[in-house]
């Protein structure tokens, strides 16, 4: 286990529901959750601390199991970070085989669309840390965001959408739909859930010209300094 590298990354892991669900299914993989939020709603603990405590409790309950045994929960962990900004500082080229974006911030305002976690340009960075054959999972309850993510992933030459038959065979799919706290909440409210899974290709098309500009609407002409602020 000591010489292993993280292979799955759950970006915006929230309460850590997915980590806990995947841990026993993939006992030989290291899975890392990342959360930018300091706190998760309805809890006074820091998000990282909450997930940490949750993992520690599970490890203690299963202390009789060997570290590499299913259900020992020794293969999951969490860290607080800005994945959009620092992904390549944490993972090598091609290190990951799965990246999860479950119920990300929808950034409803048109001007904030550019800040969404999946954009055609940011996908280059995810493709960098993802190995060929690796999979990106996108789940949301917001139709508009789902269509946005599909559009941007479709547009990116290094990603191919996985067909329904492939999804049916994938043991991660039920987890990403049902095992997060957000997913359960949507279920309780009998809301819609949208899923899109994409495979990272080894090579993109030749003769590619460029992406369509990501416009945040016309209302942002003078908001040039937004980014400067965000960077301070």
């Amino acid at each position, binding site marked *: 286990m000591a010489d292993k590298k993280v292979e799955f990354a759950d970006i915006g892991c929230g309460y850590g529901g997915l980590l806990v669900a995947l841990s026993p299914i993939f006992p030989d993989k290291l899975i890392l959750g990342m959360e930018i939020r300091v706190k998760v709603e309805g809890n006074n603990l820091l998000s990282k601390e909450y997930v940490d405590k949750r993992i520690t409790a599970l490890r203690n309950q299963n202390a009789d199991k060997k570290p590499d045994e299913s259900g020992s929960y020794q293969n999951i962990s969490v860290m607080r970070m800005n994945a959009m900004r620092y992904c390549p500082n944490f993972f090598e080229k091609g290190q990951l085989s799965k990246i999860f974006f479950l119920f990300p911030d929808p950034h409803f305002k048109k001007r904030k669309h550019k800040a969404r976690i999946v954009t055609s340009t940011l996908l280059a960075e995810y493709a960098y840390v993802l190995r060929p054959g690796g999979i990106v999972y996108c789940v949301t309850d917001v139709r508009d965001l789902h269509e946005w993510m599909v559009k941007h992933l479709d547009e990116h030459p290094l990603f191919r959408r996985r067909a329904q038959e492939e999804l049916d065979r994938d043991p991660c799919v039920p987890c990403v739909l049902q095992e997060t706290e957000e997913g359960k909440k949507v279920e309780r409210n009998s809301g819609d859930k949208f899923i899109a899974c994409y495979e990272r290709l080894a090579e993109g098309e030749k003769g590619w010209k460029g*992406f369509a500009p990501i416009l945040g609407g016309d209302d942002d002409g003078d908001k040039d300094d937004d980014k400067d602020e965000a*960077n301070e």
Partner: protein
Amino acid sequence: MQLPYHLVITLTGLDKLLFVTGAKIVILESKTGKITTISESLGTAPTVIPTDQHAKKQLRTIVYHPAKKLLAFVSDDKELQIWDAQTLKVINKRTILKRATCLSFSKDAKYLMVADKFGDLYKLVVDNPEEKPLLLIGHVSILTDMCFTSDSKYLVTSDRDEKIRVNRYPETYDIHRFLLGHTVFVSKILALENSKEILISGGGDDWLGVWNYTTGKLLQKLDIVTGVELGESKPTVVALKAHQPSNTLAVLLEKMNYIILFDLTDLQHIKQKKIVKLEREPLSFAFDSAGNIWIANNSTERKVDFLAKDKLEVVDSQLLKQVNNVRTDEVEEMFELYEIGHMRKWSRWQPDPNFSLRQKRQAALDHDIEKEESKKKTRRGGQKQKEKKAKIAAETQSTQ
């Protein structure tokens, strides 16, 4: 107050030097000493202009394509122009979406790359002003500089988040490598021509990075602070250029009266050649074709200094007088000439200077996250704020 020249470039192959002052361009013909002033918007005669108006028109970035003799520049009001540098005719003129930070022509001069403050890099067709720009690259930070490698296989970009990205070209959706090692912003990058995959970078660190951009290895760190009296300030690289025929690399630091020269003869072991002390604050510099250095100063009485290549000392010349005697526009108040130093992230909130690198990084990250958090709070604060207001109202009522 007369404006200084804030940018200088060499028009290789035309025997001309180009100086930018505010919104105007001054061209010096090095054979005849002839001076030509060009301005589309303000006219060529010297004028007095309100600062805010002038600042809007100021040309912040300019690039030249030596083989096709093309010139491109962007003003702060987001107007992009491409000119034929020989005839000084406008080929392409358009408004871009965001303020541009740097420009680069593709090797065949078919395309112009424009990077902006939002971290996006667009590709424009040079000879077609109607064609819509396409998005090639996006950083989650201000895109500070870009350069093509000499074989044009890669387009390298740098940002304010310590990162240098080696993108495949034209397949820029595919990142070849990240060059990681800088601890603060990167402001200038330079891929050497016909050299074994070497790229030099500088920013807010007290060294220049010498990288192999294919392997991603940091080969050498070149000290840029020893022998420089920095005082309280931190070094900020504002200009980084090389003259490869004479194996010289030169660097300017923001508000520091020096030009630091390196010897590129042995690329495996780049050594410092000389630190030349200057009398005035340099803003920009250029090597002319022969390898002499022209330095634009933040000074109105002596706008340009000249460093002869063999002596590497400041000397006088007739040509220099010509360009120094040009009457530039006057402004009521000088506008900001230094933009790069503001990119240092701990300029507004000082972390403990004794912090280790790791602590600094953590502090930066925490700061980042808290900022993000506070933004989110204000963003979806509607409901909570209403509740809070109601609560306060109830309380004040009860106390009354």
